């Protein structure tokens, strides 16, 4: 049983209040697909944005488990806002893990108030990071980047983006390197911004690099370390997507319980239907089981025992669970469940993204089975 510390408890309570407020914007954001800067500012002003940034840089110094609590609580009311926060932390994680001291001095303070993102995917490199063809060529003390990245969450508005490019095209994933890119770098531009099914306020964007000049000091670690950096990052961020999924499912269950207390089925109060009662029970069981695995995978990270296996299992289980639970919520709400008058139809659209991003659940199964078979 995981007990929240006093500090975590008061943080979660604070975040719950914030989440309820920003949830009022859910529909508008979903409709316009515009990045909600007001919500970003709320996160910034309330020191939610900077939670994982070390205390020596005036950040929150929060560990993975605390971040998971926060994401879960926000997603419960506003999945898209949690996704924004997770996207920021995903962009920050490679820096957190692999920055040298001068990179820390430069970027950690900035990321307390500026938006970050993470960009690995390319048209030919989805599940297979080895397919990256964006090239980073060394010219003196700079790198020149050429290529196109896709599906970078909030990449169109981010100030700082961790971008993966090949410093050696012939070496597959071993030729990958990670760079810290700033929006203002010459030769960098934003291409197509996707009109996507869910998490619509933080759309996936195309990033275009045309002779983009990057200072050599913006290389993270060393050339050829990109794949390692990406995998180590994802080990630490997958539990966060899983936490968002738990939040979505909990939010769907909360809403369904509220609805069941008022609604009717076959001329009887909904709550008198055993079919409905059992569905609610199944939803609660699934949520709690996933929640525990998420907390465990995050705790392992905080204890310095990062487990690729547990992170992948948590991501796979929790995101699949969120789809299932949102589905069951719709089953209970019926026509109202697929109506935009209620949040559940949005929650299921949001949940679907999480089964695909940061490694599809097929890739998670690949990782898990490899780990089992040695």
């Amino acid at each position, binding site marked *: 049983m995981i007990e929240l510390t006093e500090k975590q408890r008061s943080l979660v309570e604070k975040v719950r209040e914030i989440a309820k407020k920003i949830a009022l914007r859910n529909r508008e954001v979903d409709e316009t697909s515009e990045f909600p800067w007001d919500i970003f500012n709320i996160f910034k002003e309330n020191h939610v944005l900077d939670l994982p940034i070390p205390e020596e840089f005036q950040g929150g110094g929060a560990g993975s488990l605390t971040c998971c609590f926060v994401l879960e609580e926000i997603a419960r009311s506003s999945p898209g806002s949690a996704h924004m926060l997770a996207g920021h932390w995903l962009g920050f994680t490679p820096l957190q893990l692999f920055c040298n001291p001068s990179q820390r001095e430069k970027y950690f303070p900035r990321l307390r108030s500026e938006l970050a993102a993470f960009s690995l*995917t390319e048209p*030919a490199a*989805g*599940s*297979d990071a*080895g*397919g990256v063809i964006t090239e980073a060529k060394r010219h003196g003390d700079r790198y020149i980047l050429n290529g196109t990245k*896709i*599906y970078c969450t909030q990449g169109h508005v981010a100030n700082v983006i961790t971008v993966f490019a090949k410093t050696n095209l012939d070496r597959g994933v071993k030729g990958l390197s990670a760079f810290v890119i700033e929006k203002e770098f010459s030769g960098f531009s934003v291409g197509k911004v*996707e*009109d*996507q*099914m*869910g998490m619509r306020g933080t759309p*996936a964007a195309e990033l275009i690099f045309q002779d983009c000049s990057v200072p050599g000091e913006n290389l993270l670690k060393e050339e050829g370390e990109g794949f390692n950096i990406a995998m180590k990052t994802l080990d630490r961020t997958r539990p966060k997507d899983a936490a968002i999924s738990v939040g979505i499912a909990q939010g769907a269950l909360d809403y369904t319980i509220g609805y069941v207390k008022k609604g009717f*089925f*076959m*001329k009887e109060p909904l709550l008198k*239907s055993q*079919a*409905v009662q059992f569905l609610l029970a199944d939803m609660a069981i699934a949520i709690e089981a996933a929640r525990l695995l998420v907390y465990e995978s995050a705790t392992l990270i905080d204890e310095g025992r990062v487990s690729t296996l547990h992170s992948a299992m948590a991501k796979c289980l929790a995101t699949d669970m969120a*789809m299932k639970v949102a*589905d069951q919520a*719709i*089953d*209970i*709400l*019926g*026509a109202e*469940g*697929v*109506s*935009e*008058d209620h949040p559940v*139809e949005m929650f*299921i*659209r949001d949940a*679907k*993204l999480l*089964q*695909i*991003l940061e490694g*599809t*659940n*097929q890739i998670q*199964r*690949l990782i898990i089975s490899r780990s089992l078979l040695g």
Partner: protein
Amino acid sequence: MPFELTDTQRDIQKAAREFAEKEFDLDLALELEKEGRFPKSIFEKACQLGFIGIDYPEPYGGQAFGLFENVLVIEEFTRKDSGIGISLSLADMGSGIILKHGDEGQKKKFLIPVARGNAILTAATLESTHKKNEGSIVPYGEAYKDGCLIKRGETRVIHGSSASAIAVLCERPDPEKSICLIVERDCKGLNVLGLKKMMGMKLSSIHEIVLDHVKVPKDHVIHGDHEGVDPLTTYHHVHRIKTSAQALGIAQGAFEQAMKHAKEREQFGKKIVQFQGIQFMLAELYTLIEAARGLVYRAAYDYDVGAKEAERISSVARLFAADVAVRTTTDSIQIHGGVGLMREYSIERMFRDARTIQNLEETNLTQKALIAGKIILS
């Protein structure tokens, strides 16, 4: 139950497929989806070619086929485009009731304009058990002689903004159970309110309507038949089968797109269809769709021949086929990966459409309750 389509049925299927392939343009569908518009010109063409009203007798502009042939058309339509297919298949939602229970005058008056592409005949249910509607339908004049009066009723109606007439199904106390009152668009007391925004089915706008002291003349009133089948039962029966046909087509379409993508998309140096993880997903979906097709065709056949278990099978088909559509579209998105999530492709729309038709009228819970009731009582 035929396991083999006749040559004529194959021709109908082929013609519907060719029509959908030619006319249902993806860009047009996305535009209509954004604007929430009914595909009027496609509807008119589908009427001219006899796809709409295929199950009406010839004197009423039809081709004298059954619901089975209608199902084949719906399947092909939604297979190509879920949004356009659903909206066309719902354009004559009220026809089933009139075909079964209407008199000759009613058939002439209400079916011919639809078959000609000049009218949309939708349907809505007015449940007396709905607190707001209690005791709302009372006869005026001499008991049913002059018609009926809907004192007050609130409900929602598909194609609310484009319908020419609404077949309003009203629950009544036993023994009659229900009657159908056809309310025409310009009828006094019919108020079409705002759009009810749904997750999917954007081409088939759904509106809240209020019926306030609507007088329905006698020739617009449809009663049940002598065998005790009432209009509301017929409506649900037919609608279930049409919904299951829509679901079947969506599942087939989403499956085919997943296959196509898996055969084209390369990762880790091979086509993703070569990965067993993908192959087994496809195998399961194929199995489910085949099973769904068997059920949907049987439900339509049973309706046409008036089989004893027809109604129950319609619930089974609807429950199963809609589940298969939701599962197949969800998995198809998964197989597509990132592109599956993007609105410019049709997969995520197929998912939203499948989920919406599954819940709009009767839900899965309703079907299970109906099936349980029937199998326990028999």
